[in-house]
């Protein structure tokens, strides 16, 4: 079911229950958000995606995070106010303290007119430049591996493998956490034949035609088990598979 809302004075149609962050972005409004990914549940951790909203029948605008706020009929949304900018800048300063080297934060700082860091950077974090958004944890969980967890709480909270170990025992080396990480702070080192991540080393399977690393053997084992397809389905990269298929079709047509 679709609903009508008003975003910065403009009427917009969106599916009921859609994330207001998504809706504002599709409407072309610029709302930063670091801990949000449409494939995983929103936890509204970074506190950057602030907007002001007013529900029908109410008279005041309220400041709220938008990633976890559902679109509903008659909702009035403002993405651009002094209040929003003031608090967004402060939360950005708090994030910069944790992730002083993160390009995404520095770019955002430049955009918002934040001139210099307000707080001395945190230096003793287990994972430098981690903003504790838990995207890695959530992604790993949605993929079914659950190799990572949020550990502890408060300002000593960190993300990492079970039992505080360096090695993530349930990790298959898929690298999705690294892909999802907004500050690119998860170390992963690939060679032609191996991948090192979360304290583990995995063998990389390479495309049998062109030699591009495809996935780890551990990830392939799980994928095979889940998908029910034979192992050789994963012997080639997509480009080579398409090429092989074209050749087969071409030879079939010729023959």
């Amino acid at each position, binding site marked *: 079911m679709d609903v009508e809302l008003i975003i910065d004075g403009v009427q917009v149609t969106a599916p009921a229950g859609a994330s207001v962050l998504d809706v504002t972005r599709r409407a072309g409004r610029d709302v930063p958000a670091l801990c949000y990914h449409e494939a995983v549940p929103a936890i509204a951790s970074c506190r950057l995606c602030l907007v002001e909203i007013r529900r029908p029948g109410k008279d005041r605008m309220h400041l709220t995070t938008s990633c976890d706020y559902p679109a509903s009929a008659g909702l009035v949304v403002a993405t651009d106010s002094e209040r929003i900018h003031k608090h967004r800048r402060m*939360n950005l300063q*708090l994030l910069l303290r944790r992730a002083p080297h993160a390009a995404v934060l520095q770019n955002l700082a430049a955009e918002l007119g934040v001139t210099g860091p307000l707080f001395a950077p945190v230096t003793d974090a287990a994972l430098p430049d981690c903003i504790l958004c838990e995207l890695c944890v959530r992604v790993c969980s949605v993929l079914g591996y659950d190799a990572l967890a949020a550990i502890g*709480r408060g*300002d000593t909270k960190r993300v990492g493998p079970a039992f505080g170990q360096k090695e993530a025992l349930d990790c298959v080396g898929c690298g999705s956490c690294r892909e999802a990480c907004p500050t690119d702070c998860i170390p992963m080192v690939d060679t032609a034949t191996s991948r090192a991540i979360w304290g583990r080393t995995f063998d990389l399977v390479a495309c049998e035609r062109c030699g591009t690393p495809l996935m780890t053997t551990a990830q392939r084992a799980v994928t095979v088990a889940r998908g029910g397809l034979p192992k050789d389905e994963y012997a080639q990269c997509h480009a080579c598979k398409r090429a092989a298929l074209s050749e087969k079709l071409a030879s079939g047509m010729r023959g």
Partner: protein
Amino acid sequence: MSVRLQDPAALTRYREDLVAARDPRQKALAVCGGTGCRALGALDVVAALRAEVAAHAAGCDVGLRATGCQGFCQGGPMLLLVPEGIVYQHVGVGDVAEIVEKTLLGGEIVERLLCTDPETDLQCVREEEIPFYQRQQRVLLRDNGLLDPTSIDASIALGGYAALARALEMGPEAVLHEIKRSGLRGRGGAGFPTGRKWEACRRAQGDLKYVICNADEGDPGAFMDDALLEGNPHGVLEGMIIGAFAMGAREGHVYVREEYPVAVERITRAIEQARGLGLLGEAILGSEFCFDVRVSRGGGAFVCGEASAMMASLEGRRGVPRRRLTHLSERGLWGRPTNLNNVETWANVPHIVLRGADWFSSIGTEGSTGTKIFSLVGKVVRTGLVEVPMGTTLREIVFGAGGGVPGGRAFKAVQTGGPSGGCLPADKLDLPVDFDTLAAEGSMMGSGGMIVMDEDTCMVDVARYFLRFLASESCGNCTSCRDGLAILRDLLGDITEGRGTRETLTLVEEIADTVEATSLCALGTSAVNPVLSTLRYFRDEYLAHVDDKHCPAGVCKALISFTIDAERCNGCALCAVHCPKGAVVGEKKRPHAITQELCIKCGICKDVCRRDAVLVH
């Protein structure tokens, strides 16, 4: 071994039999066995009394019980002699022989054990004469002194579960209506109208509904819920059963913080006993109503006092609050309709059902009906639990029941509402305590913790204390709360250690603004109340710390120094002996002196000095 009561009439007969079997003239010795009195040796007193009675009063049929907290913690261990109603305070094992011989057998009073009214200097014999109790209206705590909390029979004899029987007769809608009419508001701190909350749960869609008793009581300095659970667990349980009936809930949880092991034990036993009698489980008192309760322990997290975090904990997850887009009464525990209420809220329910909404709303004020239990602690003469009608002023509680500040020191502030509340100064003492008035002044009533502070308390140190606490209790989800509070804690550390400037104060206010405006849950949004209220009312203390690097209250170690007053010092060298750093020098019998470079400001010298010769600047 017990027999299930088949219907309300059976319960009535059971009660009548219990009452008939008791001789109202039977003597009993009720020793307060609350946490505080236990810490002062109350259980040893009970054991000594048992031995003494067996040895010297074997013929005398005297009951002996340890009760729950009676609230007069300052006088602990407390002893109540029934039926005379004589109250003895500070009872020790050494007093037992005299009590049995003189009072129990001889009918005489042991005067040195009586409480004294400090205003008249008259001795008080009975509870009604004691000023601490006189100033109170004890609806919820009254039974704490009268019953053995490990006995369901004791509760039933005093009227326990009569309200449940009445509720079953009334039917769920009528019970709901009565709770709404009473004006009861949640006692956990938020003060949401209980009847409305119950109604939302009742009307919510779903076959399986839950009720939860929030016994997480995380506010440091608050122990009202502990006293209720330890002292009258059936009173709380009965309230939950009635509520479950009214809302159509089939399962309940009592979530008790793990720091309260005795409360866990008492409510667990109470549940087993209630099941045994058919007051819990299938076909309660022969009706169609089925309901059962489990006890769950907290793991040690203040944030789990927040309803959605508590539910996360009950679901086996990290206690991270979630945003409430739908009410928990519609989608709560396991996504099902859930009603969560505080211990004290549940405890009020049987009273309202039995005595009526009109009676309840005649107590207190229009917007805040009924009584409230306050835990009055800190720099106050009579610390303990004070139950008074809503609308009683701070002054009446602190100076009336509480007896004011000890040692002739000057009152400075009272902290209400725990870490979510604020500190109010002397000129706010005439404010009535209720759900709305204190909030307008920068504090809140909260769950009932009331901490009195005097001229020797540094308000900047208090703000730092609360920020340290809250930063460590933050679940860590939100950047603003997690990192904002950590920085505020560090900035307050700077101020108390002499590194603060005016700019520090400005930065504190700026960060506090964002923490309040952009945190997801009430822990974050209210975490700034202690620092903002102290900045508002005690700004001069902050300015002394940042401008003059001076702590007027003499607390902040980096800003104070200890010296010895040569005129008062008699050279006994006690301080020198106890000084952990050997910083005190001097010849025997000659005035001593403290070597400042070695002094770590631990204060032990001041503690041990018998001549008040150690000065703090």
